[in-house]
């Protein structure tokens, strides 16, 4: 087993990226590839990811799979790296033409799906797509979160003029901060009907705030990504829906494609792994169930 294909994710401390790594690990085992699992410790740490990419290249692997943290910033380093190693991109794009193949989910699209889900949930509750909504972002300056926010705001503006975004707030990466922000927003805005919490940690914090105040039937929350905590909230109605991507497949197919590239085979240039809205209604469908219960161990 002397083929090495490292995978570089954005943030090894997040559950989402752990699923990506689990997929990559499984692929490594299935295909007989050595898969170092690398990544920065925060999605905001651009410089850290560049350093890790540099180090990975120094190890002379057969190929590298990377989820670029930031579109522009990773462009040059990837160009540079691609001079000696084939690069496969996953999850997010980068300002580089050097990718041999690209497996992405469209985060802007994810934001749109969230807006649709939120509008539907509000309509189900009140009969019309109207009312005050807020969008919460876990951390400023993180590319994918910005794209989700962008998609959400755009969709609300163009498709749901009845929904009014009354607050657009950023947290500091902590679930507790999300929880505190949410309780304060509830206090200050009695007419609130909907919330978009654009990542997992926020989903946990906001879900907790809703559960704490038993407001599941008054305020509809759409969160992004899933784990058993947020799936639990989905079940008990504290969250109205989850937008889930297919991180496992991204990791698995990323390694598979990289191996193919390193052997000189031709591979599709672009693959969209998709994003889906999970609600209480569809959560038991086998396809969705596989998404919210990934085989990570």
């Amino acid at each position, binding site marked *: 087993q002397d083929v090495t294909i490292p995978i570089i994710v954005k943030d090894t401390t997040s559950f989402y990226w752990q699923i990506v790594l689990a997929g990559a690990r499984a692929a490594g085992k299935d295909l007989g590839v050595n898969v170092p699992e690398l990544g920065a410790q925060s999605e905001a740490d651009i410089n850290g990811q560049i350093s890790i990419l540099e180090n990975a290249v120094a190890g002379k692997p057969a190929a590298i799979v990377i989820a670029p943290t930031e579109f522009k910033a990773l462009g040059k380093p990837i160009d540079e790296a691609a001079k000696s190693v084939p690069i496969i991109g996953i999850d997010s794009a980068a300002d580089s033409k050097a990718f041999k193949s690209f497996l992405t989910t469209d985060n802007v699209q994810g934001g749109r799906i969230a807006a649709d889900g939120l509008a539907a949930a509000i309509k189900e509750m009140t009969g019309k797509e109207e009312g005050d909504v807020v969008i919460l972002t876990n951390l400023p300056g993180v590319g994918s979160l910005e794209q989700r926010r962008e998609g959400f705001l755009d969709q609300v503006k163009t498709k749901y003029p009845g929904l009014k975004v009354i*607050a657009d707030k950023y947290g500091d990466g*902590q679930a507790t901060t999300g929880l505190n922000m949410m309780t304060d927003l509830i206090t200050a805005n009695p007419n609130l009907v909907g919330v978009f919490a654009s990542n997992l940690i926020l989903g946990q914090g906001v879900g907790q705030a809703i559960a704490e105040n038993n407001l599941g039937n008054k305020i509809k929350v759409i969160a992004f990504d899933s784990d058993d905590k947020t799936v639990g909230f989905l079940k008990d109605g504290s969250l109205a829906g989850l937008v889930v991507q297919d991180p496992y497949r991204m990791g698995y197919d990323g390694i598979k494609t990289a191996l193919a590239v390193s052997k000189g085979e031709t591979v599709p240039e672009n693959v969209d792994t998709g994003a889906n809205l999970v609600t209480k209604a569809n959560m038991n469908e086998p396809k969705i169930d596989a998404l919210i219960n990934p085989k990570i161990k």
Partner: protein
Amino acid sequence: MTITSTDAAAVAPRRGMNILFSLTLIGLLLLLWIGLGIVTASFWTPLNISNLLRQGAMTAILAVGQTFVIITAGIDLSVGAIVGFSSVILAWLLQAGVPLWIAIAATLLLGVAIGTFHGFGIVRMGLPPFIITLATLTSLRGIGLLITNGSTISITNETFTNFARADFLGIPSLFWMVIMIALPAYVFLHLSRWGRYLFAVGSNSEAARLSGVNVNRTIYMAYILSATCAAFVGVLLASRIGIGNATQAEGWELQAIASSVIGGTSLFGAVGSVHGPLIGAFILATINNGANLLNVNSFWQRIITGLLIIVIVYFDQLRRRSSR
């Protein structure tokens, strides 16, 4: 620090603002509250006061523990990491079917162990407190992540997760926890001889030693108290957000130290109290709560927080200096 030749003259023009200057820290906090009560309708609602008390509670407890350490002229950077780590350990033990009380006790004991390790590093190995607690900060996050494999462990025990949102006599249980920590902490720091020893060690450890104070034991004690408070906050956090996650409470060490320093603790040791850090923590919580109620843009919120910290500590410094 600065000396002007016109001390006497400089006092005069300030006359008009005298009332502001003579306000104690708690006065400044009340001023914030009154101001917020005027500009927002929802500030003085019982629900919001409950929220506020809940939001400041965890930092307050951390800050009290941190204060013990700072009084000895040390610093404990690991408290945030201990909080996250303890939430993981507790969730893990509960997941493994360990009874709740045993799990909590075990988590607190782990806090004691971590504090002991800090004491050991400082006293026996001669490491600077900054370094040993920075090292634990780094390592504990790693161990926590290893246990959870980078994700979170859900806590299914309803009794436990209900606790953090419960009220008792109309006051949030989390705030009761602050009282439960603050009262013995007050007795310990201000009324017992061990408290005096903390101050003495922070002021002049050689003089303390020659006066028969067991300096090493005092240092151990300070770090154990700080780490145990942090472990306790980890338990509360686990109850509040219902998960164990190693990356939670990131940066809370700075919040705790800031609360303590805003509350009048000196980073050079030998100056501090129990009520100071409590007020400091609730000042910070109030700023955030107020900004949320006023729906201040998150970015402006940061800017304002920074400015308010300067203003509040400046007034407090002025009062301290003039009362001398």
